[in-house]
């Protein structure tokens, strides 16, 4: 975990640069929100997002109920700010406990506790912006949570950053970290196929008009008996069956011993 001075240093610099490949020149086009320099949140594993649509950079910060837009013809000015707040945004921010900065499990699970905005996806075919919102949940007493065990919503915006609708995805069905946008729609990775050789994506047309069913979510996370840690690591890291111990170094990676 970096110190406060590191935090100031990192987040005072540019967030995005534009590099002209022909001319070999670059310019800084945006900065981090000031809260990155002042708030005690685990920004290092709870990152902001940027995507592009119609020559605009759009930024989403996990803890901020706004979207920021930097237009091409205003690259030296401040980004425009657009309101954003999920219907399920209800929790107050849970600050980091400094005494647990060296606790890998705590840092790993920290983002599950807090409401946060995760992926920011642009759809050039429909000129839409999708902001994934993940409501904070209580951590199970003994089991670990996985991303796909938590429900999420997708807030759909048009290119003028006007909210069109918010769509609820039940816990346990999709892993929102893995997706792509095709001519048919937003393709979301089904949670049941994140391992193995056949990956199945469900395709969503979030521009579809009509009268979708309204929903009142009751369960925001699944409580599933997970396999023992050794089996979990072996499967998720693709380890050989002969590996009998794993060394994990927080933030750097891991190695295994046979």
């Amino acid at each position: 975990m970096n110190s406060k001075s590191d935090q100031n240093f990192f987040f005072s610099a540019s967030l995005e640069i534009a590099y002209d490949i022909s001319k070999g020149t670059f310019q800084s086009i945006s900065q981090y929100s000031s809260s990155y320099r002042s708030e005690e949140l685990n920004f290092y594993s709870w990152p902001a997002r940027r995507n592009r649509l119609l020559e605009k950079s759009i930024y989403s910060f996990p803890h901020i109920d706004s979207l920021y837009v930097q237009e091409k013809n205003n690259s030296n000015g401040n980004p425009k700010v657009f309101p954003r707040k999920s219907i399920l945004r209800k929790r107050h921010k849970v600050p980091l406990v400094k005494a647990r900065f060296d606790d890998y499990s705590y840092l790993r699970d920290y983002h599950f506790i807090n409401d946060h905005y995760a992926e920011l996806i642009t759809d050039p075919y429909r000129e839409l912006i999708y902001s994934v919102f993940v409501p904070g949940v209580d951590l199970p007493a003994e089991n670990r949570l996985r991303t796909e065990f938590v429900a999420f919503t997708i807030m759909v915006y048009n290119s003028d950053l006007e909210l069109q609708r918010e769509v609820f995805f039940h816990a346990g069905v999709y892993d929102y970290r893995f997706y792509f946008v095709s001519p048919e729609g937003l393709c979301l990775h089904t949670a049941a196929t994140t391992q193995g050789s056949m990956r199945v994506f469900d395709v969503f047309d979030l521009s579809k008009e009509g009268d979708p069913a309204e929903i009142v979510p009751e369960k925001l996370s699944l409580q599933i008996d997970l396999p023992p840690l050794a089996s979990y690591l072996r499967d998720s890291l693709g380890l050989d069956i002969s590996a009998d111990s794993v060394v994990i170094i927080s933030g750097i990676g891991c190695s295994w011993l046979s």
Partner: protein
Amino acid sequence: MNSCSDKKEILNENILFDSDYFRKSQINIEQPSLLGEASYFRFDHEDSRLMIWNMVADEIILLSYPELKPIIELKINTLFGSLPIADVYWQNGMLYLVSPSNQVVIYKPESGEMREIELDSALAEIDFRAFRISYFPIYVEDNTLFLCGNADG
């Protein structure tokens, strides 16, 4: 009495819709040589190619779309040595790779042409370091490369 547009706005702010209504089809992708969960999928809208980047296998596969047949398979460490990769981006026949040390490689598989751009010293002046992870994807537009970064690089 609210107008229709007023009503729509009120609905948008207070109602969640079930995702089932918007689901229209399914895509199955076979990727036998890739491992674990560490696969990232990106679709190039200019030439309709689906790129799969697997960080564990150190491999990039381009699939035709909608056939989903492999067109190009690249081993990153064979092509680019031990260059650590922060993000990869396929657009219009070109592969763009960026490393956390602010090195950009532009590679054209069709001809084997490769161009390396060393940005580290220039970007160090503004304390910029490209991300090690792909939360902010590289983006190329009008011959301009958009790079995000900082935090711990």
